[in-house]
């Protein structure tokens, strides 16, 4: 278990050697179990998946068996509450919620009964609160279908259905939350004034189809409270059984699944110092990075210009240049002083890096100098090859073909040129 901070230097002591870890560069504070190895390649992958619970499926089955034996005023109360959170405010997304409510009411009267009153109160209350004050349209359609079948004569059965629908929407001044309440009340009342003995048992089916469609452009939370209460009053009843079955199924037609993936990588760098550094040889201390290997130099007393770079057909060989040759590295980079006084330098890896060799050759014979000039003329602007005095091969162009040759002494010609290329 380790915890790192950005830019923190750490020093580890192992035996007699002291290893200075330059920087452990971590972009995020993290805790992880890992094992330090020679290569010190550490990759950390962090994947985070977040799913928004937009898809809501609720299968609710509710059944209640109530056996009444000379019991007055049974009450069954159910509160169904669900909360839905939309992905983000400001988006209009229509949701359709279908709520199929099947309600069956069976009243079995074994014995003689008089004046059985069964009152069913069904109350549906829908509240929508929105923290954002804006104009919203709430449309609520309630369809109510009540069907009653009775095997006995119609005149003996009186059934009264009362339906009360109250829609209240309160709009207050902008900036204040507003609330909306929608109350549906209906009552079903059946009275049997007189029932003959041969009419028993009596099955009464009462199918209630309730469709509730609420469309709100934006809402953060919707509460749907369904209160179901059943009240049975009887003046004189024997062996009355009342079975109430309540099924509710809520299905949201919208299913949105979102995944968020976060790939986090952090790298670890280190470098160390051991013993006395070498000042003459090519001996960089390379820690976790890579560095070009030391070039192998084979000294030779001449240089070669050739064209083309592959299978050359034109070659000029002259003596090695004088001391004082220059190897120039030029980079395209941005150099800015910030307002805070700090210096910022940036260079993209794809930006040009010019490598220019500037050399001067003396003591050439006239024919050699003329051969060089001819080579410049024949390969003007073309990529040529150049093998330097250390047997290293470059590919590039002669950028100063117009340099003059100087006849400094008898049979002694000096010439110089610049070569811009890349080391192969």
């Amino acid at each position, binding site marked *: 278990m380790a915890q790192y901070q*950005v*830019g923190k230097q750490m020093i580890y002591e192992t035996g007699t050697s002291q290893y200075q870890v*330059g*920087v452990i*560069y971590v972009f995020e504070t993290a805790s992880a179990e890992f094992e330090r190895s020679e290569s010190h390649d550490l990759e950390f992958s962090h994947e985070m998946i977040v799913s928004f619970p937009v898809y809501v499926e609720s299968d609710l089955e509710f059944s209640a068996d109530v056996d009444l034996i000379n019991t007055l005023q049974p009450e069954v109360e159910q509160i169904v509450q669900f909360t839905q959170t939309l992905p983000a405010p400001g988006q209009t997304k229509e949701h359709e919620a279908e709520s199929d409510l099947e309600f069956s009411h069976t009243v079995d009267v074994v014995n003689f009964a008089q004046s059985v009153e069964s009152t069913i109160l069904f109350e549906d209350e829908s509240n929508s609160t929105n923290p954002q004050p804006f104009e919203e349209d709430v449309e609520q359609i309630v369809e109510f279908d009540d069907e009653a079948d009775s095997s006995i004569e119609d005149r003996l059965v009186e059934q009264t259905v009362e339906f009360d629908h109250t829609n209240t929407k309160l709009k207050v001044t902008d900036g204040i939350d507003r609330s909306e309440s929608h109350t549906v009340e209906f009552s079903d009342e059946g009275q049997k004034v007189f029932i003959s003995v041969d009419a028993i048992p009596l099955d009464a089916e009462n199918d209630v189809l309730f469709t509730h469609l609420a469309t709100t452009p934006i809402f953060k939370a919707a509460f749907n409270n369904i209160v179901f209460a059943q009240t049975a009053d009887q003046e004189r009843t024997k062996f009355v059984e009342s079975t109430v079955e309540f099924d509710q199924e809520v299905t949201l037609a919208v299913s949105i699944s979102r995944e968020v993936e976060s790939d986090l990588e952090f*790298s*670890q*760098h*280190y*470098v160390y*110092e051991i013993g006395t*550094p*070498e*000042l*003459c*040889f*090519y*001996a*960089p*201390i*390379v*820690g*976790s*990075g890579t*560095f*070009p290997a*030391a*070039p192998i*130099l084979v*000294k030779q007393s001449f240089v070669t210009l050739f064209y083309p770079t592959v299978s050359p057909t034109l070659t000029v060989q002259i003596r090695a240049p004088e*001391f*004082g*040759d*220059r*190897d*120039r*590295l*030029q*980079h395209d*980079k*941005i*150099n800015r*002083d910030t307002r*805070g*006084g*700090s*210096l910022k*330098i*940036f*260079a993209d890896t794809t930006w040009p*890096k*010019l490598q*220019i060799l500037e050399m001067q050759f003396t003591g050439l014979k006239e024919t050699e100098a003329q051969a060089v000039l001819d080579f410049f003329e024949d390969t003007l602007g073309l990529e040529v090859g150049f093998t330097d005095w*250390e047997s290293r091969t470059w590919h590039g162009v002669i950028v100063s073909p117009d340099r003059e040759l100087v006849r400094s002494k008898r049979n002694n010609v000096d010439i110089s040129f610049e070569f811009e290329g890349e080391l192969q």
Partner: protein
Amino acid sequence: MMRLGAPYPGVEVYTYLPDPEFADTENSVGSVEFKRSMTNVRYSYVKSRAQHRRLSFSIIMTRMKALELRAFILKYPASQIQLRDHLGDHWLGYITTNPNEFETTGANRSTANVGHAMSRITLEFRGVKQ
């Protein structure tokens, strides 16, 4: 002996250089500009580069060490660099010379010098002492 480390903060390579020649320089990079108003009031405009210094030094090194420094500059042309100078001070900043020019100064045929030549480079470094 000088030491260059890059890239900062994730330093992964150190390269060591011999001490620079005499006449190395160090100066502040802050600047001040004076203006005089019509009423003969003098105003000074200061650009403060908090604790920034510009170091300039010329180093003569073997051919192989020059190639090492050349590879270092090629690899980290714009990276922030840790510098430990010949006085033992630690600096953090950038190499600001562009282009960087290696000049072959003469021969050195000692066995330690594989390239049999000596090179000189003049570097300018701007940074803050740590």
